[in-house]
């Protein structure tokens, strides 16, 4: 090959590199390693982690441990899904494109919205994108974040809108207090309301929508536990203008925080201001139905500095996992799954409420509640972890600036939580709080 190129050696191909920078170092890194040794190294690291499935587990707060059918993981590992590129050549990407069209339909249906995009990175960045989209749509600037919004989501919006005087972040609302409607004014572009909120409370979206719309503002609804939509009224039916969800719960493992799946849906008339890829139906030269990425003039590779966002990736494989799992559930399965989660949460709420020293803050909830434990939650959760119980998230881990949440723990259950898990938690809590 070097002969064909006419180069003496490979170094000659790097002749444009300044001599001072070319191989001017020795890398302090191990050399290549056979597969069995790499696997042993990585297994040893994996072994230092306590997997969720190793014992009682009650952590949620934006990521949920659900069962993923074996079919899902088998299918997403097929070469044609796993190792395909973005479907920019539609003639040889109809698999991915049709799947995205089906995915968009599923997301539109569960959120009750007109249209959904082909996914974003995750729920938190999706929320920031929704806020920017609302500003473009309304040409107004004030954004109000509810005190029930996941604190990481709030922080991502803050980073995206750095030093913005028109961003109002309301104080955490662990009691589920109505905290947002009074702040809406005519300069408000959007309010952001999460339901179930960070503390597990269900929020009144209709009231929020009415109050926002009365001032010409948009309602952005955030859902971090997408399974809740099996049982809760669709945000679209309650007046939401943009819905953002973290879709991880369906089809995707916990993965220590990523990759996850941002869902975004909106009204038909807003679609041209929506960020992210969109798949649309069309026909080919022989009149056969086919699918293409469309409305791509919104995107950065064409609009450059006038793009709707700088995003150029969706979360394709996670969207595939979501879509397969959702197809396997169907309406009947999705509703059953949601009901099962809610039933477990009712059992949890009743059981922990009976533990002396614990009070449950939620009247309404889906599969997550907040409890007050009358002592610093961080230490308690750590002691419970030593006993082998992962007993939720101390609210102060995400809200260190709010001392009033120091004694709060956010607890989640799913269909994987057993009665004996709940009994173990309650027994351990009883002993620790005695």
């Amino acid at each position, binding site marked *: 090959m070097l002969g064909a190129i006419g180069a003496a050696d490979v170094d000659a191909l790097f002749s444009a590199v300044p001599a001072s920078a070319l191989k001017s170092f020795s890398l302090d890194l191990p050399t290549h390693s056979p597969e069995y040794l790499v696997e042993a190294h990585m297994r040893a690291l994996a072994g230092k982690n306590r997997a969720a499935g190793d014992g009682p587990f009650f952590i949620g707060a934006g990521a949920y441990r659900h069962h993923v059918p074996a079919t899902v993981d088998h299918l997403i590992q097929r070469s044609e899904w796993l190792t395909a590129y973005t479907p920019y050549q539609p003639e040889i990407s109809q698999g991915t494109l049709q799947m995205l069209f089906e995915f968009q339909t599923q997301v539109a249906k569960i959120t009750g919205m007109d249209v959904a995009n082909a996914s974003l990175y995750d729920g938190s960045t999706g929320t920031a994108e929704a806020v920017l989209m609302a500003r473009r749509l309304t040409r107004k600037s004030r954004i109000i974040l509810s005190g029930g919004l996941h604190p990481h989501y709030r922080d991502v919006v803050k980073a995206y809108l750095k030093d913005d005087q028109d961003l109002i972040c309301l104080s955490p609302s662990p009691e589920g207090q109505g905290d947002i409607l009074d702040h809406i004014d005519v300069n408000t572009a959007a309010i952001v309301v999460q339901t179930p909120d960070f503390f597990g409370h269900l929020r009144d979206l209709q009231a929020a929508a009415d109050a926002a719309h009365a001032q010409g503002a948009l309602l952005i609804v955030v859902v971090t536990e997408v399974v809740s939509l099996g049982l809760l009224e669709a945000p679209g039916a309650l007046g939401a203008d943009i819905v953002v969800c973290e879709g991880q719960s369906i089809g995707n493992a916990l993965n220590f925080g990523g990759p996850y799946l941002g869902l975004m849906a909106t009204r038909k008339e807003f679609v041209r201001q929506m960020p992210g890829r969109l798949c649309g139906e069309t026909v080919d030269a022989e009149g056969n139905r086919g699918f293409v990425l469309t409305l791509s*003039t919104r995107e950065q590779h*064409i609009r450059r500095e*006038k793009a709707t966002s700088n995003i150029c990736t969706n979360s394709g494989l996670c969207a595939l996992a979501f879509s397969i799992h959702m197809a396997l559930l169907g309406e009947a399965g999705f509703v059953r799954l949601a009901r099962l989660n809610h039933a477990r949460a009712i059992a949890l709420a009743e059981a922990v409420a009976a533990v002396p020293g614990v009070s449950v803050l939620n009247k309404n909830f889906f599969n997550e509640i907040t409890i007050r434990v009358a002592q610093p939650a961080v230490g308690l959760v750590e002691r419970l972890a030593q006993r082998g119980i992962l007993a939720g998230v101390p609210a102060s881990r995400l809200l260190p600036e709010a001392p009033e949440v120091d004694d709060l723990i956010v607890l989640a259950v799913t269909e994987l939580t057993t009665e004996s898990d709940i009994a173990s938690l309650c027994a351990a809590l009883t002993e620790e709080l005695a």
Partner: protein
Amino acid sequence: MTTKFTPDHEYIRIEGDTGIVGITQFAQEQLGDIVFIELPAIGKVLKKGDEAAVVESVKAASEIYAPVSGTVSEVNAALSTEPGLVNADPEAGGWMFKLTLADVTETETLLDDAAYADLTK
């Protein structure tokens, strides 16, 4: 009634103190199939050279600039459902917006038929 052109391929047809703005036959051929047009709000005040509209084809988005200063008095609503009119008939049915001219003399700086034809030769 006279029609004048910009080097950016907009035309403006002047009728009294009103100018009708669109893109030229040459421009629509260059852009290819137009799929969406973002029109200005009625009442919007534009200075010469301001971005007034955006024309999107499948693979490109192009800004349309105000050829002269003025206030938007009307937009071609038919384009929202039938953007292909700009391809089919750019200089009649495919017009984009009307401007109430701020200063009629400004149009004198634009290209006339012959000068524009030269430009696109």
